[in-house]
């Protein structure tokens, strides 16, 4: 029975994702972004099938197992775009570091103003980087990786929903700049969004996500002093 439910969960996820991509390609809107659409659909179907998150977990573990090699695979866009990134290293790194600093300082300030507890602050510290790295960092420092994953995902989903139109309005049109911002602030989901804009934007975002992950990994011991 478990095997059946696991197969069902995985198939459901794949089909929801494929349909989500098709719908987004036809009717691009914040509410049809593939992850947002698939998540809502899957949750509703799980509930309608009388299944809960526990039942879905074995299937979830199989799918997320591939986040490891997927993170390693980010070396490829990094490698392919190494020349343009090295050439524009100064703007790229400045944008990444300033963007990460601003997002973290604002997140912490608001969290402290609302006196949110420390385990939430720990999750917020890794919210902009890709899930596999965020989860690993939180576990390395004894935090709750489920919370981190939730914040990372919310940031990614919100990012893909808000950022494209916002950057258009602010006249940020340079694909290199958009790619860096997508990858730095909204990690994998941002990268997926960037790839929809153009292959180049996606590649830059992939590289930025990789570098942002490395930056936060290296600076986390320092950041954790403030938690």
């Amino acid at each position: 029975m478990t095997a059946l439910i696991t197969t069902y969960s995985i198939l459901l996820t794949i089909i929801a994702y494929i349909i989500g991509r098709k719908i987004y390609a036809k009717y691009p809107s914040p509410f049809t972004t593939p992850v947002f659409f698939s998540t809502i659909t899957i949750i509703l179907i799980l509930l309608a099938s009388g299944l809960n998150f526990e039942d879905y977990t074995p299937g979830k573990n199989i799918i997320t197992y591939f986040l490891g090699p997927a993170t390693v695979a980010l070396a490829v866009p990094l490698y392919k775009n190494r020349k343009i990134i090295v050439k524009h290293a100064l703007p790229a790194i400045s944008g990444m570091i300033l963007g990460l600093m601003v997002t973290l300082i604002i997140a912490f300030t608001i969290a402290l103003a609302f006196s949110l507890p420390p385990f939430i602050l720990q999750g917020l510290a890794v919210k902009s980087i890709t899930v596999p790295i965020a989860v690993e960092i939180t576990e390395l420092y004894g935090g709750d990786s489920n919370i981190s994953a939730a914040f990372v995902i919310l940031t990614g989903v919100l990012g893909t929903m808000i950022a494209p139109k916002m950057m258009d309005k602010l006249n940020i049109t340079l694909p290199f700049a958009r790619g860096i911002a997508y990858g730095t602030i909204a990690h994998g989901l941002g990268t997926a969004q960037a790839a929809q804009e153009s292959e180049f934007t996606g590649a830059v975002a992939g590289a930025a996500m990789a570098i942002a992950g490395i930056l936060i990994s290296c600076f986390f011991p320092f950041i954790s002093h403030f938690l």
Partner: protein
Amino acid sequence: MKKLLAFTGQLILLLIICKLGYYLADILHLPIPGNVIGMIVLFILLQTKVLKVEWIELASGFLVKHLAFFFIPITISLMTMGWLFIEFGLGLALSLGVSLIFGFIVSAWTVQKLSHRGEVKQHDSAHHNL
């Protein structure tokens, strides 16, 4: 069929590099996650020409293109976190939302202002066929 075989082989190679990353992080006591070490290892292998991009392009291209898919199950886990949002909803929503908006603006705006527009645009079109 040949493509499927190549894909599987490449995926296994990526898995091995990932495991190697975890192993290195463990024995060297690095404060960096194993999968990030794996990514750095792969980058070095590509840069030193030990591995050719073509040897892993199929699987890595697929994984990167569909990265969002692998996040969906984690997003589903939000269905168990209602309590978090009931208890801390407003603060959390503001913290995540406002920090996201300003992070995006500062990051993108800095890159755009500091880059020489024409230069990157030229580069851009040259890289479109990646």
